[in-house]
């Protein structure tokens, strides 16, 4: 049986995505986000 490719856990994806958003906001590359 071939070994399964190692998946990045969802927690890390969430951290990466959130930090990515924070960087975009910090660098004024994201539009104003209303609620």
């Amino acid at each position, binding site marked *: 049986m071939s070994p399964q*490719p190692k998946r990045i*856990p*969802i*927690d*890390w*994806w*969430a*951290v990466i*995505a*959130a*930090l990515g*958003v*924070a960087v975009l*906001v*910090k660098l004024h590359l*994201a539009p*104003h*986000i*209303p*609620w």
Partner: protein
Amino acid sequence: MSEAVIVPVRPLGLGERVARTLPGILLLATVGLAGKAAEQFLRDYGKAHHVALPNIEYVLWAILFGLVIANTVGVAGIFRPGIATYDFWLKAGIVLLGARFLLGDVLRLGGISLGLVAIELAVAIAIMTFVGKAFHLKPKLTSLLAIGSSICGVSAIIAAKPAIDADDDDATFAIAAILALGAFGLFAYPLIGHWLHMSDRAFGVWAGLAVDNTAEAIAAGSVYSDAAGKIAGLTKSTRNAMIGFVVLAYAVYWASRGKAHTVSNKAAFLWQKFPKFVLGFLLISLLATVGAFSGPQVTDLANVSRWAFLLTFAGVGLKTDFRELKKQGMRPFVVGALAELSITVVTLGLVLGAAAIFQL
């Protein structure tokens, strides 16, 4: 003897995986937005007709709509991969929630929460184990319910299942029971909070301590107020950080009885089970504390967090399937409900005590 033919399954590429999740994510967004629209509609209707209608937060509507869909027409297979992303939105939402906390507040409230969590853990495990034994539940199902009720419903049960070699059926039941009881708490807790005139902080700590599923804990807090939702997120994350220790203790217990694998490297086990999004939350909070973001930028990040939670709340409703509860009969559910009720009362007492001492 026939030879088994192994057909290699081609792993899906990132693009294909994202494409598979799109229908479900659109459903999450639709249900979430319908919740927001329902809140707005009721408010506008009340104003236009001068009727005093209760302000029902979008959180409750989104969860309610999701529950109705999941338990009537059901969720078609095409939506399932996307609905499963609710965990991603939840965790990304919590990380971004860090922007609304100064690190000092995190340490102070986190410290108070940690003390309360330690007591809550001991009490919840003791109560669930006692009630489970009294009702003669299967010991591993009792363990799963104890882990789920003491730490964090779904993630803790998923983390514990392989560690104590529990059955799929027991894990599915424990998850369904925790979600269903949490859904009930969403409606009941805010009513109790208002009745006792609890502050936003005290209510947030209580929701974070007593509601087992992270999304439902934040939802219960948000139903009370935006500030309470924020505090519930922090308290619940503190509780989640304890997940590894509790699961490890149960793994060691079952291994000592020869009914689970032995854990060889305990430090690696703890790191593997540690919820990494807590680190992201602390990092964003640290950045906000040192002034990395301007006021409007903090608002933007907080709003992204709110949108992520909107998808999460829709997912909670869509994932709660009351029919799963019937499969193991009413007894385990009654055990879960009795234990949760006791935990609710004990944590309420703890929080009211802490609120008086620490001015929460």
